[in-house]
């Protein structure tokens, strides 16, 4: 999929981490020139622009986007609480904003809100983690290039876990995110499906999904630990 444009470059580490953990594809640019030279064929689907201590550069880039110097879908502006007043009369420069430093959950919610709703950006359609590959477009998963035969719920569970490597999820969280709250089976269902997934991954790869004692499950390891 097409990545999101992030300004400035290098991206602030906590932003890079949040985007990676959330499974968003992104590329940082230091200025308008770089944003233009690295622009994907169909333009950037969106931009996250951090207005840090020197917000003028950020606003300048926003303005260039609005005037079409570089093609960008929606703009999410990240701005420090002390500088909110500077948004006055600049409302046309961004589609939504988020306080900076941000709370990862808020950032994630705003990203989804902006890009899911407009349909302009989607999560990466390919997940690759070690021996595991998943094509979200075709619903196919493979381990070491060999197709995995999964049921729909096994696939959804694996997809969810693989999109968040290293993150520990409780059974309740998995149940509510993967099955939905109204599922009657209770958290036991999660154990049953994890066990099924492991048996399909095969002995050699069963440990891709780890049991975190008295907490829940995690997949692989994060590049952030």
């Amino acid at each position, binding site marked *: 999929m097409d990545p999101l444009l992030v300004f400035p470059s290098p991206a602030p580490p906590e932003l890079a981490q949040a985007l990676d953990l959330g499974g968003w594809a992104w590329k940082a640019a230091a200025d308008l020139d770089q944003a233009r030279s690295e622009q994907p064929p169909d333009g950037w689907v969106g931009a996250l622009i951090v207005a840090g201590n020197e917000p003028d550069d950020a606003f300048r880039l926003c303005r260039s986007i609005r005037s079409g110097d570089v093609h960008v879908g929606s703009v999410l502006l990240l701005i420090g609480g002390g500088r909110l007043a500077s948004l006055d009369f600049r409302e046309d420069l961004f589609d939504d904003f988020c306080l900076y430093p941000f709370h990862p959950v808020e950032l994630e919610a705003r990203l989804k809100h902006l890009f899911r709703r407009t349909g302009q950006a989607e999560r990466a359609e390919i997940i690759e983690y070690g021996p595991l590959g998943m094509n979200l477009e075709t619903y196919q998963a493979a381990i070491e290039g060999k197709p995995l035969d999964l*049921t729909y719920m096994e696939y959804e569970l694996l997809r969810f876990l693989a999109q968040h490597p290293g993150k520990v999820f409780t059974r309740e969280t998995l149940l509510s995110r993967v099955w939905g709250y109204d599922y009657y089976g209770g*958290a036991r269902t999660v154990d049953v499906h994890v066990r099924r997934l492991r048996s399909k991954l095969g002995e050699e790869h069963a440990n891709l999904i780890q049991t975190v004692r008295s907490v829940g499950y995690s997949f692989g390891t994060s590049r952030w630990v």
Partner: protein
Amino acid sequence: MSREQEYVLRTVEERGVRLIRLWFTDVLGQLKSVAISPAELDAVFDEGVQFDGTAIDGFSRVHESDVLARPDATTFELLPWAKADEPSGRMFCNIENLDGTAFEGDPRQILQRNLQLARGHGYTFFAAPEAEFFYFESGDPASGRPTPLDRASYFDLTTSDVSSDLRKTTIHMLEAMGIPVEYSFHEDSPSQHEIDLRYTEALDMADNIMTLRLVVKKIAMDRGCYATFMPKPLNGVQGSGMHTHLSLFEGEQNVFHDPDDEYGLSATGRQFTAGVLHHAREITAVTNQLVNSYKRFAEKSEAPPFVAWARNNRSALVRVPVRKAGKPESARIEYRGLDGATNPYLAFSLILAAGLRGITERYDLPTEINVNLFEMNDHQRREIGIEPLPRSLDEALDIMEESKLARDTLGEHVFEWFLRNKRTEWAEFQAQVTPFELDRYLSTW
């Protein structure tokens, strides 16, 4: 079209699936299958597959003979034994009437209905069976007494025999189909094996049992031998049962668990157990539905014919396993009456209904029985309040016929059909002169 159906369509396309088998189960517990081509799948999800049910056991009715099979997309699995260039998949189906209502003869929906009742109380029902079966050289009755493949016994580690290899292949296939196996080992009798499935919700488990039976038989057949779940195929050695571990959950909580109770059983767990015991005699015709099932009970082994419970007493119908400390979620009871020839959808429905009745009516759990009931006579057992299970299919049918619980749980259609069908089976058996009779009487009278 649901997301699950879309997923199946996509998988069929991506994997080049050539054939889709639609599975369902008749009232006697036999697996039935109708195959469709992938091109039909979209329409089948919308409309179902219409077929004439007249020839299927328990499906015939007076007015209407056609029914609809509707595949359950969540059960789609690729068949691991299909040829690489001809991938095939299967789905379990619900059977509907042409007007879209549930077909009253469909065992899978009978279980769904009973699980729904349990959910009304907030419960999810989990089951984990221990399936026993024999491998023989042949399944042809004409070849006489079946010949086992080995002479090994309980837990024996046999190195070179065919049957261990068969079991291993079977387990790989089951795992590949998302049916986790907890243990497997050589059982007590020659060429008798056991595969224990890891617990899952009862509907999935009933589907899994149907799959397990097919896989066990198929792998054996591929190697030129025969596998059977017949409850008592050999004289003089123990038969095959399907002891099943049962538990109820309320969300994350195992409602059978109480750490302060002497047996680790909560009040709910006690009531459920009491319900299962109280109604055990009424449901035995279904949990043990063959004439032959009652020969297993006659062996005085792991097939307990007495309505009693205990922690460690193999002559009792229900076992309350002693648990490892710190595993509250594993609280369960083990129902030891079942055999592998049962229809798992109907058997689980009845056991669940019996247990729930115990809870809603607040049955008292009888005292634990720690004496060997096999060593007592009827009179002694009666004195301590222990009843035997029915001793024959005939007696089991008599008791079932009087059971409102069985009638309500199975529904009128299946209840009536089952009794009629099994009465006929019994009558046919009664009309047979057996080898026993010839051996014993021909030369003496």
